[in-house]
């Protein structure tokens, strides 16, 4: 309970910071007035520019964090995140490809198809007949798939005319520029539905954490539970990608950070904490990306790359000390 309060407080603080800071600095009082009406500068900023952006960042971060936590618990490996394994890149590639082909399709569906395709490729490539697949094999194969997808992305981007190509390139690195309330509604809506779908699966996740033999002995249909969880995880990640691009490393970092901030135990607590931490990381990284250098908006993906890569290195050295690599 205390953990939940701490997380909620940090989320509120990050959102408030992100709403007040930027090209134009606003006081909290101006924001407050803007929220309740009137047409001062605060109203414009919160309703049209920063409000939807922060809402999208919170939603996308939460679904990415949730997805990361699912895969890390499912594969019982802190490196097994959908962004490391190329699932988010697959979703992003599908969206960029659909946009460049001029297809008018609902983006969440396109992203979901891309994410599922990438996950299927990783699973098929890592599969060896008659042997169980080690989580690290999935991670490594996924890394190769992510490299390939990045190259395919550059391939698609090259075909676009100049300005659109620059835009697509930015988006493919993860970007929250020019989001509106429609995007926010979309990611929150899909996220809520998927989170509800996750509720009945939490027990399966807890049982799988005991090891698949024990889980099977306790009456769980292990194979089916795994596929359902993986499906939910990919769809969550795709929902985030559809509105914010394949922001790297958020899913990787969210669950461990959430567990540390909230001290959560049990599958439900860890999942909720991961969603909260993902939202915090995304909002703060977006704030840093647009406000760190005056007059310049970096794509958020660059910022999470700068934050996330050292985390991955640190994680690796920890894993090595524990003798797991």
């Amino acid at each position, binding site marked *: 309970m205390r953990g939940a309060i701490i997380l909620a407080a940090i989320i509120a603080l990050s959102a408030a910071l992100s709403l007040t800071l930027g090209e134009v600095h606003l006081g909290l009082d101006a924001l407050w007035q803007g929220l309740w009406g009137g047409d001062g500068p605060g109203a414009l900023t919160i309703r049209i520019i920063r409000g939807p952006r922060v809402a999208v960042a919170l939603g996308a971060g939460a679904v990415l964090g949730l997805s990361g936590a699912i895969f890390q618990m499912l594969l019982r490996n802190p*490196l097994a995140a959908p962004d490391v394994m190329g699932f988010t890149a697959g979703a992003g590639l599908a969206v960029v490809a659909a946009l460049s082909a001029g297809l008018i399709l609902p983006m969440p569906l396109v992203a979901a198809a891309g994410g599922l395709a990438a996950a299927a490729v990783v699973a098929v*490539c*890592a599969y*060896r007949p008659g*042997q*169980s*697949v*080690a*989580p*690290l*094999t999935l*991670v*490594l*194969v996924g*890394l*190769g*798939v992510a*490299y*390939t*997808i*990045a*190259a*395919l992305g*550059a*391939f698609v981007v*090259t*075909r676009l005319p*100049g300005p659109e*190509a*620059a835009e697509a*390139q930015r988006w493919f*690195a993860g970007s929250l520029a020019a989001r509106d309330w429609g995007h926010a509604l979309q990611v929150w809506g899909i996220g809520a539905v998927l989170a509800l779908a996750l509720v009945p699966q939490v027990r399966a996740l807890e049982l799988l954490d005991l090891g698949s033999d024990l889980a099977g002995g306790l009456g769980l249909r292990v194979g089916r539970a795994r596929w359902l969880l993986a499906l939910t995880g990919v769809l969550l990640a795709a929902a985030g990608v559809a509105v914010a691009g394949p922001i*790297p*490393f958020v899913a990787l970092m969210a669950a461990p950070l959430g567990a540390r901030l909230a001290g959560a135990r049990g599958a439900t607590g860890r999942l909720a904490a991961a969603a909260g931490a993902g939202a915090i990381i995304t909002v703060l990284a977006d704030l840093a990306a647009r406000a760190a*250098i005056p007059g*310049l908006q*970096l*794509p958020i*993906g*660059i*910022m999470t*790359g*700068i934050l*996330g*890569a*050292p985390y*991955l*290195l640190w994680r*690796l*050295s920890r*894993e*090595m000390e524990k003798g*797991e*690599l």
Partner: protein
Amino acid sequence: MLLLAVAAALTLGIGVRPVGIAEIWQAFAAPDPNNPAHVTILSIRLPRLWAGIIAGGALGMAGTVMQALTRNPLADPGILGINAGAAFAIVFGSLLLQQADVGLVAVLAFPGAALASLAVFLLGGGRHGDAGPVRLALAGAALNALLLSLVSGVVVLRADSLEVFRFWVVGSLAQAGERPLMAMAAVTLFGAGLALALAPRIEALSLGSALSRGLGTRPGRVQAGGLLAVTALTGAAVSVAGPVAFLGLMVPPISRRITGHELRAELLVSASLGASILLLADTAGRLIFAPAELGAGVMTALIGGPVFVLIARRLLPGGQT
């Protein structure tokens, strides 16, 4: 060698304006400054050819040295972040120095590559003896992501030009005319000579450090020499062609097939294979969406990504790590 000759001829001949072999010969034998085809060959495609040979050869050899030193089939200057280190040093250096002189800034590629290779060696657990391939590959991927994020950040700062971004993040031969080709050719030759000289000792090292000491090899020195060669080769390649990835990954397995396990021969074959593949990748990249160009780095990554997957799935058989 034959492959290299064919690749070179294609690089010169094919493009938005196709030029026949006879005319290429004419351009060299009796250059006519008023003939547009001759100008294209000599001032645009010839530098590209040199850049491709330097960068491709250097990366092929660098990958071979790294795979032999680490005994890791996933070692490649691109994947382990050494390319990115060189690119970051150049991009960041030219931001700080506001230096227009390309040659001077290009020198920064070497400390950049050296620091990155040292970092990945230490992070990958090189001190404790054998670095697990998984750990090395993941540490490299993380370092690569970090440095390329920084490069993108700096490039976005300086100019919103997608061309510049593509060159420094993905690698291409499109700016060959503006790169310091002569100096980097010399550095590549130095790195190649060093690698060839060290080859027998690197082979001895791969027998295991105790045994190689018995044979009179000092492991620390050989490793340091190998890292120096990798640094020189990678730095030179990045300063002419940007951080082209995956050449060093896919070339060594092929040349091992051709030469067997003799490192010197393998290095030479890797050099010509690397150059050929890069030139072919560049030519293909120019043709696919002509007149738009697909960077050579994109093409190598399109082939290299699946190669990485193939190697990775063989690496960890069974349920243990």
